């Protein structure tokens, strides 16, 4: 088990990986990968039970990247935890790669479900949760969503169902970085008060600073203690976190850094890591 300090270092390493992968690919979405690095690190290196050498291990906890465009940070976590060689990260988005631009279950073992069209992951998480409960299994399910993704109606269909079925093995995480493609979430489509919404839908709601590793770890521990209710962690984060010229800029949702920009970004991450 890694110490909190080590987990922070790992999160920083994943950020460096993301920047380098996207620069190599020449396209992709840095903002949401960088904002969710602590969440994904905590899950892959501390919270989740999983066996990288056996991705379909029956005892595993399930992770669903519902906001599929942030899959680079998941790939980085998978590589760094041993699912596949780190060098393979540089094949992201290239022809014949297993690392598709958005998660593909058929391509890469360890990807539980294909996403890329927003709003679908939480329903799938509900289904997995129901299946596991039917078999009286203790595995947990984690589903990472975006805050822009909360605009999708299907999220709320799933939110209703998760509470209805009392799915306390399910933990949703909203990477609330406040930005979506067309601008600030509050301007594009105001989803606030998000915590109240989930609360009124019957969820256990935790609100944290999502780039603070201690808070992230504490929240995941709390989520495990919820009874007869699904938990959502609303993680307030900074889009583009760690790379000062990307932070809080909608423009960095879906544009890759050039090789030169990547060098500057990596230097900053290494200095502060």
């Amino acid at each position, binding site marked *: 088990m890694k110490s909190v300090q080590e987990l922070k270092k790992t999160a920083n390493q994943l950020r460096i990986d993301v920047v380098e992968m996207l620069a190599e690919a020449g396209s992709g979405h840095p903002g949401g990968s960088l904002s969710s690095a602590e969440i994904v690190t905590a899950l892959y290196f501390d919270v989740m039970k999983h066996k990288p050498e056996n991705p379909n291990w029956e005892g595993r906890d399930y992770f669903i990247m519902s906001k599929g465009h942030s899959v680079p940070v998941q790939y980085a976590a998978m590589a760094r935890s041993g699912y596949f060689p780190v060098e393979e990260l540089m094949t992201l988005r290239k022809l014949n790669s297993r690392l598709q631009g958005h998660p593909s279950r058929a391509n890469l073992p360890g990807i539980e*479900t294909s*996403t890329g069209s927003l709003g679908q992951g939480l329903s799938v998480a509900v289904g997995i949760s129901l299946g596991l409960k039917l078999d009286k299994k203790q595995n947990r399910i984690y589903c990472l969503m975006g805050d822009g993704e909360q605009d999708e*109606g299907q999220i709320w*269909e*799933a939110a*209703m169902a998760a509470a209805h079925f009392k799915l306390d093995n399910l933990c949703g995480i909203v990477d609330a970085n406040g930005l979506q493609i067309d601008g600030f979430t509050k301007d594009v489509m105001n989803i606030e008060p998000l915590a109240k919404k989930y609360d009124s839908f019957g969820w256990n709601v935790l609100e944290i600073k999502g780039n603070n590793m201690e808070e992230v770890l504490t929240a995941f521990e709390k989520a495990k203690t919820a009874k007869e209710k699904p938990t959502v962690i609303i993680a307030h984060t900074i889009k583009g976190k760690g790379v000062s010229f990307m932070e809080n800029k909608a423009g960095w949702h879906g544009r890759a850094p050039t090789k030169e920009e990547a060098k500057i970004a990596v230097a900053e991450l290494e200095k502060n890591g």
Partner: protein
Amino acid sequence: MAELVNMGVSEKKATRDGFGNGVLELFEKNSNVVAVSADLSESTKLNLLSEKFSNRLFEVGVAEANMVGIASGLSIAGKIPFASTFCVFCPGRCYDQLRVTVGYGNLNVKLGSTHGGITVGADGASHQGLEDIALMRVLPNFTVLVPCDAVEAKKATIASAKIKGPVYLRFGRDKVPVITSEETHFEIGKALVFKEGSDVAIIACGIMVYEALAAAKKLQSEGIDAAVINLHTIKPIDEQLIIKFAKKTGAIVTAEEHQLHGGMGSAVLEVLGQEFPVPVKMVGIKDVFGESGSPAELMKKYGLTSEDIVKAVKEVLELKK
């Protein structure tokens, strides 16, 4: 040739009943089979499960996209889920979910789509699914089944659980003649020859198979020898049998309770056009929405009766000359 019974039509049953009975039998035999319903379990016949198997029947309310997602998750957890609602809602309301989550993910999800076709009747066009075959057959990984009667519907349902991967099954609302028996062969991907013939081959699916048989009978009395093929599997399509009959008869008529564009007939044309072009006439819905009415009235008004098939056969025989 497949063994046929009941051309005297003693019994009528809806294909959705065959679906319900098929799922029930699967539930009894395999505890891994589950079902997801979107507030229509009485209509889709999933209610047959509620008495004995309520723990494995998940009701998700009027939320079709969520239904498909939940079925997907259940399959990821190792279950064999049947999700069922009306044809207009699935695929109609959840095409993106079927494409990205189910199809692209190649998940072991079975979709029982009931109330396909114009014979939905009085509910009108909003409820008459006439484009689902086209939508579903263009999604990679999907198998697409359109059984011809309640007996075949049950077999198709059971067969769908035995193959890995996503399956779309289309059923109807209205009671239609039972033309096959327990003994009639059923295998996914293998079309059935219900009547041999040498002048023309009528290729049909769903309830149009009965109409095709009725048409062939009328044609026989006029000295035209028509073969009738039950193309219950639209995908993967039985190319071999289609080509064989194109070669044998030199003229094809297709018949489906579906839009002409992109449906079963189009799938047949894709085979013929590339492998063995022969004259073809198509019977189906001609790029219009339906309306309220009784099934029989609608079949007549929208050109889906055995008379319409007879007419198409005569036209195609003119082209063959």
